[in-house]
């Protein structure tokens, strides 16, 4: 087959065409990539692009003006509240520093967002400033390699210590708080409490007795929303104040692989308390999600909802008429005297270590970590607890349910949740707590299973001592 005279030249032509085809393919890919990265920024402001290296060039050409204009790109998660907060901070900062333009990029939240941030960091593609969780999630980002050390910034003096420890790794500080704290505990319906003549419980036994009375009255005692399986962890996680009150060294021992949930009685209680709630939840607790739980609470269809206080703005928005019917108390322990609140620390703003605009980014963080910055945040985001910046006060007109938290703070009876003081947290906790809460697994068994899950996590993260 084929004419031998043309054999050789045909070979060259075919090779050449292959190379061309392949080059065309690569060029095509490259082109579309570029479009991808440019499109989010294009929608925000057309003149600048997302990556720091590229943003340098337009500013260079525009630098006929005396002051050098700088564009900071800011990454935040895409929840409405986070976007509002970031926007408020960026606008207020830009108003004070007209030379610094900021543009926002959003990312998914939750574990998808964790992977997003990790991927950006590992490909060297991170925004100048990024908003991300404090505590164990921040520590998993390998801060020494990726995040700028801000220990020596003057504003650190304004940040309260209980927050500082959640953005510290190996003695260095990495972030500035972007919002108020959250409490983790029990929302309750005051009308139901009043009708049944109940009082706010300060021991676990009181709470269980209340649940029983509410159930006997034909009302759902506890709202369960296990379709969003993370919500099933709340009772277990919000119990941490009680754990550390009984066993002050638990966090350190736990991180060092010396203490276990299954063998530490105070910690095992957290799982046992969850087990105590079996049978007290709404019928469809396996199919209900967070939104329907908030609705049930606001409409008085359930008496208690163990949850984080970040749901308060949602209640205010969807059911403003019932916000005053709702109260909040910390998850009680076994002793009235040791009743305190487990606190979730706000997310923080971090500076990417390889940012081209470190000075401007530092300025931005200094603004965030100031009473002024928190005031800007407070305008768009209902505080869900006190701020962690000295001098930033929550406004008087916050609903009573937020004020319910203040006594715990005033008397110093708060502790950050375990995930903020230890990098160790097993990824299967939501599944395990669903099993306990639905009565499929006993507390002791679940604690042992969780210990095993934690061990896996610590090994995968390469923590010392595991």
């Amino acid at each position, binding site marked *: *087959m*084929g004419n031998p005279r043309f*054999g050789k030249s*045909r*070979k060259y032509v*075919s*090779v050449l065409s*292959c190379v061309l*085809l*392949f080059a065309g*393919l690569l060029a095509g890919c490259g082109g579309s990539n570029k479009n991808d990265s440019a499109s989010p920024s294009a929608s925000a402001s057309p003149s600048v692009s997302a990556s720091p290296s590229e943003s340098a060039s337009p500013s260079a050409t525009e630098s006929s003006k005396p002051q050098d204009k700088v564009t900071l790109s800011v990454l935040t998660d895409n929840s409405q509240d986070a976007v509002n907060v970031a926007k408020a901070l960026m606008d207020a900062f830009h108003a004070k520093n007209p030379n610094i333009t900021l543009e926002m990029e959003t990312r998914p939240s939750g*574990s*998808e967002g*964790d*992977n997003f941030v*990790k*991927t950006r*960091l*590992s490909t060297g593609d991170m925004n100048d400033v990024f908003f991300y969780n404090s505590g164990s999630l921040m520590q*998993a980002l*390998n801060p020494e*390699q990726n995040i700028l050390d801000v220990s020596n910034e003057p504003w650190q003096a304004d940040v309260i210590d209980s927050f500082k420890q959640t953005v510290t790794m190996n003695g260095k500080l990495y972030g500035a708080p972007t919002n108020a704290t959250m409490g983790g505990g029990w929302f309750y319906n005051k009308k139901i409490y009043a009708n049944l003549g109940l009082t706010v419980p300060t021991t676990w036994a009181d709470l269980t007795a209340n649940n029983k009375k509410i159930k006997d009255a034909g009302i759902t005692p506890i709202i369960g929303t*296990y379709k969003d*399986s993370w919500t099933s962890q709340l009772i277990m996680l919000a119990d941490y104040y009680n754990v550390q009150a009984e066993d002050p060294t638990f966090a350190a021992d736990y991180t060092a692989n010396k203490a276990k949930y299954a063998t530490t009685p105070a910690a095992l209680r957290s799982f046992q308390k969850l087990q105590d709630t079996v049978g007290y939840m709404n*019928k*469809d607790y*396996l*199919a209900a999600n967070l939104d329907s739980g908030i609705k049930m609470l606001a409409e008085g269809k359930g008496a208690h909802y163990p949850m984080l206080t970040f749901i308060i703005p949602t209640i205010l928005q969807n059911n403003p008429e019932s916000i005053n019917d709702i109260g909040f108390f910390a998850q009680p322990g076994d002793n009235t005297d040791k009743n305190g609140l487990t606190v979730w620390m706000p997310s923080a703003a971090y500076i990417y270590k390889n940012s081209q605009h470190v000075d401007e980014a530092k300025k931005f963080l200094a603004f965030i970590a100031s009473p002024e910055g928190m005031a800007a945040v407070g305008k768009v985001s209902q505080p869900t607890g006190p701020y962690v910046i000295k001098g930033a006060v929550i406004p008087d007109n916050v609903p009573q349910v937020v004020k319910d938290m203040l006594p715990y703070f005033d008397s110093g009876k708060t502790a950050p949740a375990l995930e903020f003081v230890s990098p160790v947290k097993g*990824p*299967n906790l939501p*599944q*395990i707590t*669903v*099993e306990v809460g*639905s009565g*499929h*697994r006993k507390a002791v068994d679940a604690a042992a*299973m969780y210990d*095993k*899950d934690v061990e*896996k*996590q610590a*090994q*995968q*993260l*390469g923590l010392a001592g595991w």
Partner: protein
Amino acid sequence: MNKVWKRTYTYYFLLPAAIIYLIIFILPTFMSFFFGMTRWTLQDWTYIGLENFKTFFQESSLNIGFKNTFIYAVVTCGLKVVFGLLLGVFLTSKIRTKNYLRSVVFFPTLVSTIAVGIAFSTLMHPTEGLINTTLASLGISGPDWLGDTRIALLSVAFVDVWKGVGFATVIYIAGIMSIPEEYYEALQIDGGNSWHKFWNIILPLSRPATNAVIILAFIGGLRSFDILWPMTRGGPGFATDVIASIIYKQYQAGFYGLATAGNVILFLFVSVLAFPLSLYLNRREVDL
């Protein structure tokens, strides 16, 4: 050697496809064998030998998926074969609205899997879902389809069958239509009825179609993830976890090395089950 270059088209035409295949398939496959043996943070890795595989097989939250995966694959595959064949026979018979019905049966295959998952998890809501409210109006109290750990996996498998049966049917229609007319004529001469037609002609002679459906549905069932995730996320607890959902959760947790090891295990699991099955089925195929 010379013979190779004397074809009409040279083998160099394979090069673009081969390079792409090499770069985005072969290379990652072999890399995954390596990264499965490391602790990997995307930025750096430490070699730990077979530790990840050991963890995967030892921990109950990880190996819980093997049983579920197998049950899921067998159930979905079996039902797709049965319903696909019956629908295929029905839709190749002489009915008036044949074309319309064929589109109806095929339609679920075209809908986004995530959308199907979300729609069915709404329909299967224990108190407000359409299925249970309908049952309630008939005086039957329906179970919690996705919340009851005993039936949750089967509920998901049912939705998978609903969505996938259209594809199986199309394969069967093609298989049945390729059976030569002579067999039916011979049957008529022998005086066979429609049962004989089904049992002695259609069933044995649509064997290639059956094999294709079994292999495709079985492998699809083994690595199924997309319909399960929006419906149950492997829950309640770990009740509907399959290997793929477990791997996904390890990625979410940032255990990239462990997740990669899980993928290698899934690859081996599918291979070990699918290759012998395929060999066995092909050996028994008959020529038309």
